[in-house]
């Protein structure tokens, strides 16, 4: 049965094209730095050179190769996006499912906490937390993004669970005397797999955007290259006003391509799994 669903999903054009873009960029991020071994941090070229055969995407104001930075940047942004979204997903699913399965007072307390965190603007919270760390490695940035972006997942998971819980097969399991945990793992989770995957996809695009935003305002990773860090340096060294388009256009375009593809994937899945949107 699941393989039939997969087959049908892969027939959705929107889905496959977006997935192809993501996989391509993932491949570039993973393999690119080895195929194109120029050091992204070594200032050995003529500064501010436009794209040429030697530096396909030109150089920055320090004389560093922009393509090399982009390749390492894609890798870093994907890494932070993935780790941060896994962290947020873990927190969100844990809180949402405990609230949804336990109900009662537990539910009320957890949801109050969730609502308060949801009301705190995550971007301000991230900036604030990041500001107090002098050195920020990719893991720290992922954690900061992860712990501030889970609330909507918790709410969505809980809502899904509540609607599932009211279905017959769950009642049967309950009558059979299964534990809450067993019901959660055997009955509820499989039915939510697609939903959780959609949440992961959206979280990931949000996390990569958050990384860029944090970097732009000066509190991103302190060492290494990411798409956000590239934009930060381009901004700091006036790349726009000095006409160095090859420095700020590529990282932004990749960011938009990644984020738009992830959104398309989740939209395609949403349309497939919730028939309300199909046809008219």
């Amino acid at each position, binding site marked *: 049965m699941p393989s039939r669903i997969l087959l049908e999903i892969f027939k959705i054009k929107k889905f496959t094209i977006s997935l192809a873009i993501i996989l391509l960029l993932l491949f570039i991020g993973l393999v690119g730095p080895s195929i194109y071994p120029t050091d992204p941090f070594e200032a050995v070229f003529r500064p501010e050179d436009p794209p040429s055969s030697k530096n396909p995407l030109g150089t920055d104001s320090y004389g560093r190769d922009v393509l090399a930075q982009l390749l390492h940047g894609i890798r870093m942004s994907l890494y932070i996006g993935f780790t941060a979204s896994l962290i947020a997903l873990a927190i969100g699913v844990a809180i949402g499912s405990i609230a949804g399965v336990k109900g009662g007072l537990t539910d009320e307390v957890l949801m109050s906490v969730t609502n308060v965190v949801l009301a705190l603007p995550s971007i301000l919270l991230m900036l604030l937390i990041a500001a107090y760390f002098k050195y920020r490695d990719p893991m720290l940035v992922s954690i900061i993004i992860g712990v501030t972006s889970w609330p909507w997942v918790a709410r969505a998971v809980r809502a899904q669970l509540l609607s599932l819980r009211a279905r017959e097969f769950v009642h049967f399991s309950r009558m059979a005397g299964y534990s809450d945990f067993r019901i959660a793992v055997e009955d509820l989770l499989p039915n939510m797999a697609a939903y959780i995957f959609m949440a992961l996809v959206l979280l990931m695009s949000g996390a990569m955007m958050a990384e860029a935003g944090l970097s732009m305002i000066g509190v991103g990773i302190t060492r290494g290259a990411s798409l956000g860090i590239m934009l930060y340096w381009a901004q700091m060294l006036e790349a726009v006003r000095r006409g160095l388009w090859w420095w700020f256009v590529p990282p*932004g375009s990749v960011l938009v391509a990644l984020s738009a593809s992830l959104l398309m994937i989740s939209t395609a899945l949403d349309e497939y799994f919730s028939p309300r949107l199909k046809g008219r």
Partner: protein
Amino acid sequence: MEGEKAVYRGLLKRPVVKLLIRKVVFLFITYFVFITIIFALPRLVPGNPLAEMLANILQTMQATPELVRAVERRLMEEFGLHKPWHEQYIEFLGRMLRGDLGTSYSLYPRKVSELVFTYLPWTLGLLIPATLVSWIAGNTLGALAGYRRGGRFDNALLPVSLILSQTPYYWLAMILLYTFSVKLRLFPLGGAYPSHVVPSFTLEFIAGYLYHYTLPFLSIVLAAAGGWAIGMRVLVIYELRSDYVDFADSLGLSDRKLLQYVFKNSVLPQVTGLALNLGTILGGSLITELVFSYPGTGYLVFRALTRLDYPMIQGTFAILFLTLILANFLVDLVYMVIDPRIRTGYIGE
């Protein structure tokens, strides 16, 4: 006297008022939580950021011994680090309530509150109109596209909105600045008004202001409208399945009239969406300010963050968050006014 009390009691029982009170209490709690986080963070993070800040100041200020002592004393007073933490906390809350946000260190000895209120109007002047325009434009375009789903307009609008909705404001800002100011030389390279004019209510200043306003405004409007358009399009597509639409259609109602009804009935979630997204919009526009060297709060935040000016970080964030809470409350009020179910007390939530 008794009659007055009864009136009050009657008022308190009305669902709208109940809802309003709950909302205010909730927002108050979130503000309290936020202030607590602001207080706790520098004390929880390993490596004592505050001591770090002091060392930083002493290093960069080229200060005379008197000034160093003055700064040190202020720092001790403001953060009260020598006292037990619960005393520090109560003092901190008290100062926040009184609006005393402390002294900036990177712009010593200016008060944080004074600084924030100098920069905040520029941010709000940019943010509020841009948010409203993008919301209205995005929803209108999205509704039109959804109404003629699969039509030529829809097919053109959907991919554009999709890409715009995933474009960071500040990157679009960079692209617009490069295209229209650097290449085409149509707009200024940055700032909020021409450098030779003093802010005042003169025609010269207003014209210069608007001229500098165009690109920052457009970056936020364009990027934000994409998201609203996508959301509204889907909502309208759902709404078109309602029975009343078929009924009105069979009555031969004009497209215009029908679209009006559908719009009214599907716009409510977008109002909630506005409240939920205010923080993201604010964050994005703060960074956009940096791209245009706009003299708004974004500059202040950036300066405070890069110079580890903790009183300024705390104060700016406290005020920004308060602004967001007020905006959120306003949006909720609008929601209550336009949702007929709440207005008539049909539902309590």
